[in-house]
Structure formats: C-alpha cells, structure tokens
C-alpha cells in the first residue's frame, strides 16, 4: 500500500555487503520495509573475507557479525538471497522490480545451519570464499558466521546422491526447487553491488597462476584468518613451509592504463601495510618488503599507522619502484623480483610475493545497468557527479559503496547511510506505511509470585547430545530448588520447540526460564521473543552455555563434561530464581534537530532533514553561511562551485523548516538523546531550543603556514589564495611556478595527512597549464595521494608537462630570496639524487587543513571526545563513522576529518540518515539492564560520576538538602563499573545484581549444599512428572 501520491514506503537494496547492510539497517530503523537482494547465498560481501581491518586491527568478523545478525533478524528487512534483478518498471517513488530467485534446494524456514549435511556430502569443491585454498562440500554454508545461516546446494557440482536429505534432521532439504520470478513494489532502489577483484593473471609478468608462491592479497588475507585454510598460519602453497621473506607489489591492476584501470583503488596501500603487520605477528622472524610508488595513507590515523609500521615494526618500504617482472627458482620455488633503483636493475629473492590487486567494477555490471538504465563512467563504475555523489543517472535509483568509486569500509558505511537518506527523501510521506509492528500478549506481573523455573536442555543434534548425557541433565535439573519443569529436546532454537516452550510456560505458569544450549551472545533474543509471546517479561530468562563452552571443548572427557554441565545449569537456575522483570526507560523524541556549523556539510544536512519532514536549527558562527566553501571556485572538472553554493544557501534560507542563526554561538547543551536542550547566543540574543538529535558540522580551517617565507613575501601563497588569484585575475603573468606539498601536514606536530591538498595542487596546476602551457610548473611532493578517480587528473597534469619532484621528509625544499630579489627554491630530487635550483615567480604551498577553533569547547559542552589531532572522535572508526559514542549526537564534514566536496555531501546525508533512525520514532527505549541508585544508601560522594564514561550518573540536590547521585536511564549502557566503584554498594546493576552474581558463585562451589538459609523460605512444590 502507499500514501496519497502513490509513494511506496519500501526500498530495494541491491547487494548485501557492508554498504548494503548499513543502508538497509538505517532504512529499516526509520520505518521503511527493505528488500536486500544479493546474488550470493548469504550477506556479508567482501568484508566477511577479511581477518583484520586497518588501522585498528579490529577482527573484521567481530565488528561485522552484530550488523549481520541485526540485518538477518530485523523486523523490517526481507533478505532475498541468491537473487538478481530481472527487470524494473515505474517511476521514482513507485517502482515495480522483477527479481529472479535461483533455487537453493533448502527451505530457509527449517534449516538451523547445524551443518550435519555437509559432514556426509561426498563432493568436495574449491571454496571461492577461501579463494580456492580450502575445500567446501556441494551443500555448504558460505562462511561459518553466515547470515541467514541457511545452507545451499551448488547444483553444478552436486551429483544428486541425496545423502544430505537423509542426514537433515530438520527436514529442510527439498530437491524440487526451481528458479522463480518475484514481483516487488518499492519506492526507491539503492545499488551497493560492491566491486570485483582484478584478475592478477592479466599481469603475466608477475607469474600469478604459474608460480605457486605468487598470491593475491585476498588469498593472503584468507591465510591470515583463523577460519582460513591453515588456521591463521602463513604457509608457502608450494611446500607448506613458513616464509622468511615476503614481498608486496602494489598497484597490480590499478594506476595501469595497459590493463584498462588507470584509476587508483584507494585501499590497497593500507591493506598491504596491515597484511604485512599481521603476517609478521603470525610468523615470527618474517621480513616484509613493500614495493610501491606512492604510499596513499590519507584516511583517519592512516599516516601514523604507516609511520609506526615503518619505524616500530620494521616493515621495509621501497619507494617509487614499479616492479618489472617476477621470475622463479625452479628447485626452491623461491621468487626473484626485478626492479630498477637509481637507474640500475636489481634482483631480490623472496619466499612469497603478494600482489596488491585493485578493484574492478562488479561482475556482469553491464547486465545490471542495461536493466536499470543507469549510465556508467569510462571505468565501468557508476556515473555520479561532484554535487550529487549518491544519485545515479536514473532518478529514484541511488548508489553507494565501492560501485560509485573504489573506497574503504568507513567511507562506504558513511556513503551507505547517505544513500539511505537520499532514498528516504523521495518517499518521506510513506514512512511507516509498509512496516508491521509485532504484537505481543499483555505481560503478566510476576513480581509477587514464588520463582517457578522451567529448564530446557538442548541436544543441538549431536553437538551437545554427542558428548553430554542430556537426558540425565534434564533429570538433574528437576532436583534443583525452584525448578518445577525440566525437559530435553533436539533443537531448542527451532520454530516448533519455541512454540512448545511458550505453551509449557502458559500451561505450568512458569515465571522463570533457563535454556541450557549454546552461546547467549547470539541466541538470547530468539528465546526472549518466545517469552514475550507467552506473556512473560523477556528479562526473566537465563542461558547456560553447555555447547561452545562445554560439549565442544571437552569432547574427550564426556563424563566430567556432563558433571560440569550440571554445575553450569545449577548456576543458571540459581541466578534465574533471583531475576526480576525489567521495563526499559522510555524517552519522548522531540521531532527536530540542531545542526552546528553552516558550511557545506551543515547546509546539506539541514536541507536533507527538511526534505525528510523535520525542522532543523542551523547555527553558524560567521555572519554568512558557506564556511570554507566560500573560498573554493571550481571543481577538478571545472564544476561551478560558487554557483552551487549560492543555490544551496538560497535553498536553506527559503526553506521554512530550517531556522538559521548566523554569527551565533552555542552557549550550553543539556539533556540526552530524544530531548536535548540548547542555548544559542545569536549575536547577543539568547534563544533556547529543544531538539531530539544534534549534528556536529563545525568544518575546518586552512593552516596559516610559517614555513617557506609565507607571510614574508607576497609571491608565496597558499593553494586557496592561488585559486582565488587565478579566478579573479583570469590570467597569470609568470614563467615558472613551484608548488610545495605537505605544508603543515605529516609533521611531528600534526602527524596526519590533510587528504585534499594533493588534488587541489593538481587542479590548480591544470588550470595554469590551460591558461598558458608555456608556464613551467614544478610540483614538489612527498607522496602523491590523488586516490580514486582523481588519479586521472594527476596523469593529465604530468602529460601536460607539470614536473613532479619527490623529496623525502628529512630534506625538505628551501625557499629563499637571492641577491637580485628573485625567489629561489632548492630541493634534492629523490629519484635523480641531485639538488635542483629553481627560480619561480610564485611559490604555492599546499597548506594543511586544521580542525575548527571552537572544537575543544564544543566537545566539552557535548561531552564527546576529540582525537589527538583535535578532530572529533567518532564512535567506531570503521562501522560507525558518523555516530558519536553518546547516543543522539552525529558527526559529518571536515569536523571528522579533512575530505573532498563529494565526501562531505555523502557524510552529511549519512549523518541525517542516522539521525532519522531516532527522529522517526515517537519514543525511544533505553537499555533495560541499567544501574539504579538507592538514594538512602548513596552518600553523594561522586565516585560514580567520575567512573562513568557515558556521563550517565550526575549529582542532584534532594529537597532535604542532601546530595545524591541519579543515573540517566537513556545514557546508561549497563556495564556495571559504577556499581563496583561505589563504596557502600548504593548502585544495583539490574540483571547483574550483586546477590544474583553471588548466587551463581555460591552454587558453583556448593555441590550438595542447599542454598543459604535465606532462600529456604521458598517452599519447593512437589515436582510433578510430566
């Protein structure tokens, strides 16, 4: 169904990688029905193959699986696996998409992912997920943590012997499946199909596929992963030995016109550094060498990561070398790298050579685009432009992730949220139209009742039943205090057992449930759902992990493992008897937002918020809007930036949903997510506003250089000043111009890369050459970081005669004025190893981008952290780039990190989409397991206020003059640190109360002892045999 003008409140996301998932979650949280279409049997995309992520070395699966589980189980997300788009009709806001679903031969509702079928399947196939280094069966799960955890039969290899059907105890296998065409009505479409890896075979000179020990970077990544072929060990495929020397060759299939990929794939430099570090961790004594042209470490804390890798971890970086070819020593299978250094041809021997392969456009992308009618750019990626980076050529169809241009995980996630925001703006009216809210029976109040515990022990097929004596565990459970019902079943998490559990709850009047099966980390929500369906508060539930932490790890001692399982169940029952029903705190959401900073990001955010139907207060400290954008005149391809700026400012000022406060400062902020109170000082006048969320877009400033005679000689200027000069004076009377890169960036004081200045310099150099090709332009750089498609402009500049001279950090160029008053620049050219002397007419400095001055003060006001360089620190560098740790506050633009125009626009839309996931709800539910203060016990000592990282506790004055602590339910995360730091235990942690934990400790060590006296009061009813 749809709203008045026929808009449909649903979105189709093509591609289930990290970008697709982020967009789907944002849309689903904001009240839209989402169809995720992915050609592979489960979602996860390329990130699922990674072992660790740079620069934090987080384990990729650890940070990805919460998103996987959330997407897999979200009420408003429908996964359409092993499916592709067949055709699309209709207009923006009302599309009809025909989706072709390949047959999987496994019923998604029945398969529990237990894997018994794979044990018996006789057919072994090279596993694509592990790049062929490992084998999988004809019936397989793409990777252990796959979502949905449903197996698939690979029809090309399966000989149809039918043994899997005999093994499947859930009866989920059905061989009659065939391809079907499904019609789906959606309002907008988001394309996030990701990328495909460049086939290194095309670079024949490196011998991939011929020499055994030449690997692609993804193959090495699989080796490094614990679920990989060698369980984390790096072994030479030729002889299974551990390598002593490993070489990385960069730009394989990137920056290479010959193979048709002239662009830079943006991530391979950092990917190689990370792999080198992790490989050394896994292989003591390993030497790693990286052969590269430019080290493109432009992201957040990338440069420090690169510097640490070189100085602390001893990774050998061999600069500006393009490896000519690789040859092999036939006996030892070792490899020789041939490369030129200072004009001489050198040969170095290595055990393993890793090719850092670049990105290609996704497989069969032509089919997709011709069906959807969207245009591709000359590299076969999606055509977008600077001002609308998230829109494709087709209105109503949006793009995000690597398909728009090669990018790393944080940029993809930010863009995914951005695309979600754009997709929502099209169908703002139909929000919540197609979303169903699950109805639960009214909750029974059990507070007065005696604890009556029901224990359900699981066989989990043979996973538990194969080692532990499960029936005896169920019998033992019956003897425990407060237990009135105990049973064992084959698969407790299967749909039918769930049904039986809720019936048993109602029939026996159980008011506590204990399930002894697998890990609570993944299964608690399933069982809590069952409790709610039986009218029980979900927190009256406890799990005993007798699979992952008992049967699977004590296979050789089944008797003693069963004894341990009895202890674990006894502990769970002891705690269950003391569980209380908990109601999470609810907060009313004020349906408006505060945007701090009126630059490009701030204005874009305000416009998108208004378009989504919410009011925005836009606070700008200058007298007019625009921020740093006012000083940028044209884009790399000559786009009219100032024209766009005027249109944007007009759009902001004309929109009655946006209240603009210029030359205004934020005085004070209080409250928490859902209801922030802000006091704005708008040139003298104090205004109080209330809003549900805050978006920080305070932008950045250009660095005032002190080096290279800047400020002492008018002929030395910054790139922005030079751009203004080019535009205002129209032409330039000079014979020679020298541009110096990394001025103020990548120094000990500011050890970060300002990301945009390499491209800014190239842009201005091209404009100069366009005006007068006769002018000699020298560009002195340390690393050319024109990543992504900007590489084109760097090549164009070189072709047009701009001379690029590399200098090392230790011998920086020297700018001086000679006796005739002419400017003089001396620099040691790293390649030619000679000192050059140039007399330019102008020296243009690529000055760094600094965080805005007011960041410290604002950070203290909002209680959000800054990173060591003064930019704002986001909640998670990889997966929550636009959120803060404190809920309800979001971040975008230069305030997060210096970045390009189109990246700012994407991140601004991303911040809005994250904000909409809160604004679209009327009330917000906080955590249920939070801390509570017993005001009679509390001395108001303030220790908890200092302990808490989330600012949840605060000291309040009671009417009788006593000072006590109060904990804000919306902010408390339930970690429990404050309750331990409180000397007289005035703070109780719901669900982990001290007496609950102590009851577990006591029952763990008192085998026969009945629990201490005080619990004898509860008389155990006569246990009725069911």
């Amino acid at each position, binding site marked *: 169904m749809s709203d008045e003008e026929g808009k449909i409140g649903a979105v189709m996301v093509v591609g289930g990688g990290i970008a697709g998932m982020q967009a789907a979650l944002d849309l689903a949280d904001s009240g839209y029905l989402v169809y995720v279409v992915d050609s592979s049997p489960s979602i996860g995309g390329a990130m699922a193959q990674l072992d*660790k992520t740079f620069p934090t070395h987080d*384990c990729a*699966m*650890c940070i990805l699986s919460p998103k996987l589980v959330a997407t897999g189980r979200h009420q408003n997300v429908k996964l359409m696996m092993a499916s592709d788009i067949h055709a699309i009709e209709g207009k923006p806001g009302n599309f009809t998409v025909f989706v072709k679903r390949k047959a999987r031969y496994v019923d998604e509702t029945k398969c529990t992912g237990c894997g018994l079928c794979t044990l018996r399947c006789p057919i072994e196939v090279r596993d694509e997920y592990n790049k062929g280094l490992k084998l999988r069966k004809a019936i397989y799960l793409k990777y*252990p943590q796959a979502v949905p955890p449903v197996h698939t039969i690979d029809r090309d290899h399966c000989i149809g012997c039918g043994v899997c059907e005999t093994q499947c105890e859930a009866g989920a296998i059905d061989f009659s499946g065939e391809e079907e065409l499904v019609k789906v009505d959606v309002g907008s479409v988001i394309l996030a199909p990701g990328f495909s890896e460049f086939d290194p075979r095309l670079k024949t000179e490196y011998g991939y596929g011929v020499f055994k020990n030449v690997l692609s970077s993804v193959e090495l990544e699989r080796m490094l992963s*614990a679920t990989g072929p060698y*369980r*984390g060990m790096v072994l030479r495929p030729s002889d299974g030995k551990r390598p002593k020397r490993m070489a990385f060759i960069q730009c394989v299939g990137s920056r290479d016109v010959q193979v048709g990929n002239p662009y830079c794939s943006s991530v391979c430099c950092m990917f190689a550094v990370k792999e080198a570090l992790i490989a050394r961790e896994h292989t003591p004594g390993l030497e790693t060498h990286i052969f590269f042209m430019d080290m493109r470490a432009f992201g957040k804390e990338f440069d420090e990561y690169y510097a640490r890798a070189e100085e602390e971890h001893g990774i050998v970086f061999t600069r500006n070398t393009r490896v000519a070819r690789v040859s092999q020593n036939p006996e030892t299978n070792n490899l020789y790298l041939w490369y030129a250094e200072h004009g001489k041809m050198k040969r170095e021997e290595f055990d393993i050579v890793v090719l850092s392969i670049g990105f290609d456009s996704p497989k069969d992308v032509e089919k997709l685009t011709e069906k959807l009618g969207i245009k591709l750019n000359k590299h076969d990626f999606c055509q977008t432009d600077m001002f609308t980076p998230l829109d494709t050529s087709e209105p109503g169809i949006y793009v995000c992730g690597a398909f728009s241009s090669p990018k790393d995980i944080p940029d993809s996630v930010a863009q995914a949220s951005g695309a979600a925001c754009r997709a929502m703006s099209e169908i703002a009216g139909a929000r919540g139209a197609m979303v169903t809210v699950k109805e639960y029976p009214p909750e029974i109040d059990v507070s007065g009742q005696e604890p009556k515990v029901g224990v359900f022990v699981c066989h989990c097929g043979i996973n538990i039943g194969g080692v532990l004596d499960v029936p005896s565990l169920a019998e033992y459970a019956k003897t425990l205090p407060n237990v009135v019902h105990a049973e064992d079943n084959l698969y407790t998490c299967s749909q039918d057992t769930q049904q039986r559990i809720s019936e048993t709850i109602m029939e026996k009047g159980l008011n506590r449930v204990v399930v002894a099966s697998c*890990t*609570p*980390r993944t299964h608690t929500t399933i069982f809590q759902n069952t409790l709610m369906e039986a009218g029980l508060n979900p927190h009256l539930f406890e799990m005993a*992990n007798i*699979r*992952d*932490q*008992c049967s*699977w*790890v*004590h*296979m*050789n*001692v*089944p*008797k*003693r*493992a069963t*004894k*341990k399982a009895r*202890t*674990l169940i006894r*502990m769970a029952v002891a705690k269950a008897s003391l569980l209380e029903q908990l109601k999470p705190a609810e907060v009313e959401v004020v349906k408006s937002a505060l945007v701090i900073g009126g630059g490009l990001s701030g204005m874009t955010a305000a416009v998108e918020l208004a378009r989504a139907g919410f009011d925005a207060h836009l606070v700008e400290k200058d007298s007019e809007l625009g921020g740093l954008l006012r000083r940028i005149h044209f884009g790399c391809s000559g786009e009219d930036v100032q024209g766009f700026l005027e249109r944007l400012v007009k759009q902001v000022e004309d929109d009655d949903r946006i209240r603009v406060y210029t030359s205004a400062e934020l005085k004070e902020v209080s409250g928490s997510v859902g209801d922030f109170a802000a006091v704005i000082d708008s040139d003298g006048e104090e205004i109080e506003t209330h809003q549900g969320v805050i978006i920080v877009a305070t932008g950045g400033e250009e660095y005032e250089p002190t080096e290279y005679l800047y400020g002492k000689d008018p002929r030395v200027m910054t790139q922005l000043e030079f751009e203004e000069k080019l535009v205002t004076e129209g032409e330039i009377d000079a014979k020679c111009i020298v541009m110096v890169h990394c001025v103020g960036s990548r120094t000990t004081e500011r050890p970060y890369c300002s990301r945009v200045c390499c491209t800014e310099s190239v842009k201005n150099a091209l404009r100069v050459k366009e005006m007068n090709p006769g002018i000699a332009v020298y560009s002195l750089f340390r690393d050319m970081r024109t990543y992504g498609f900007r590489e084109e402009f760097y090549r164009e500049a070189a072709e047009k005669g701009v001379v690029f001279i590399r200098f090392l950090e230790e011998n920086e160029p020297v700018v001086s004025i000679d006796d005739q008053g002419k400017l003089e620049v001396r620099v040691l050219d790293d390649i030619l190893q000679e000192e050059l002397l140039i007399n330019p007419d102008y020296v243009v400095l690529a000055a760094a981008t600094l965080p805005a001055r007011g960041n410290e003060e604002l950070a203290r006001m909002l209680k959000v952290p800054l990173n060591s360089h003064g930019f704002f620190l986001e909640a998670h560098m990889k997966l929550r780039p636009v959120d803060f*740790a404190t809920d309800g506050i979001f971040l975008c633009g230069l305030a997060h990190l210096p970045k390009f125009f189109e990246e700012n626009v994407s991140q601004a839309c991303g911040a809005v989409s994250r904000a909409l996931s809160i604004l679209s709800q009327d009330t917000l539910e906080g955590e249920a*397991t939070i801390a509570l203060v017993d005001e009679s016990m509390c001395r108001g000592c303030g220790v908890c206020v200092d*302990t808490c*990282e*989330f600012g949840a506790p605060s000291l309040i004055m009671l009417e009788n003059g006593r000072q006590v602590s109060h904990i804000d339910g919306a902010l408390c*995360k*339930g*970690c*429990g*640190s404050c*309750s*331990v*730091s409180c000397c007289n235990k005035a703070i109780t*942690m719901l669900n*982990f109360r*001290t007496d609950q*934990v*102590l009851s*577990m*400790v*006591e029952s*763990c*060590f*008192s085998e026969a*002892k009945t629990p*201490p006296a005080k619990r004898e009061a509860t008389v155990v009813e006569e246990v009725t045999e069911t």
Partner: protein
Amino acid sequence: MTEAMAPAIEEEFQPSILVFCCNWCSYAGADLAGVSRLQYPVNVKVLRVMCSGRVDPYFILRALELGADGVLITGCEIGDCHYISGNVKAKERIERLSKLLDQIGIGSDRIRLEWIAASEGTKFAQVMEEFTDHITNLGPNPLKGSETGGG
C-alpha cells in the same frame, strides 16, 4: 587421555576454577574456542558479566572463601573495552586485591587477570590450560573444608 584411562588418577586433585568473562571480548573468545573445537580442561566454569569492570573484589574473595581453588578474571585488551575503560578499572582493583590476598595468606597467585580478544580462541584455550596446571601444582585451596559458609 581418554576417560577409560583416567580412572587411575581420578582421586588426584582436580581444581575447580571460576572464570569471569566479559560479554564482548573474552566470552566471545571462549565461544570461538568452542566453534574451533579447541579442547581445554573441564575444571574451568565461566560466569558471564557485561564488563570486567563489573567484577567486584568481594565476588573473588567470596569465591575463594567458598572453596574455589583459583579465580580467573578475563576482559578486553586495553583500548578495546566496549565501555571504553572498564578493563582499566578492573586492573587496578585486582592489583589492590592481590596485595590483600598475599597479606592474609591465601596468596595472590590463586587469582589471575588476562586480556583475551573476541578473535583469540586459541589464546583462551591456552590460558585455561596454563591456569589449570598452575593451580594444580599450587594445590587445593586451604580454606576448603572449613565451613566458612558466611553468615
């Protein structure tokens, strides 16, 4: 060593050890050890808490009083804590408790603090193995058998 061959050493001292695991890192590491079927001694029993910062020194002393032969407190690596600094506080509290345990004669080598990340299944199994051996050599908890029982 299979069950059948174990009867001879059945009476031999089998320590019972309590392990506090934090929900986000070390508990996930324990699960990964399970998923990869890494075998470790059956003497360890895990108690899940939301953060290592939730482990009160009294829980540990109470466990020792009730006859625990060893108590292992595990949490996220410093800097990885889901609640930013829960593990830092845990480290301080455990250090202070260790001094007290030495003074009253139980000895601080009965307890140990270990950081185990969610991806370190093998490390979890190793730590369980090492700590169980360490406690086995140390011998049973001297308080065992005395009916402290508390209150």
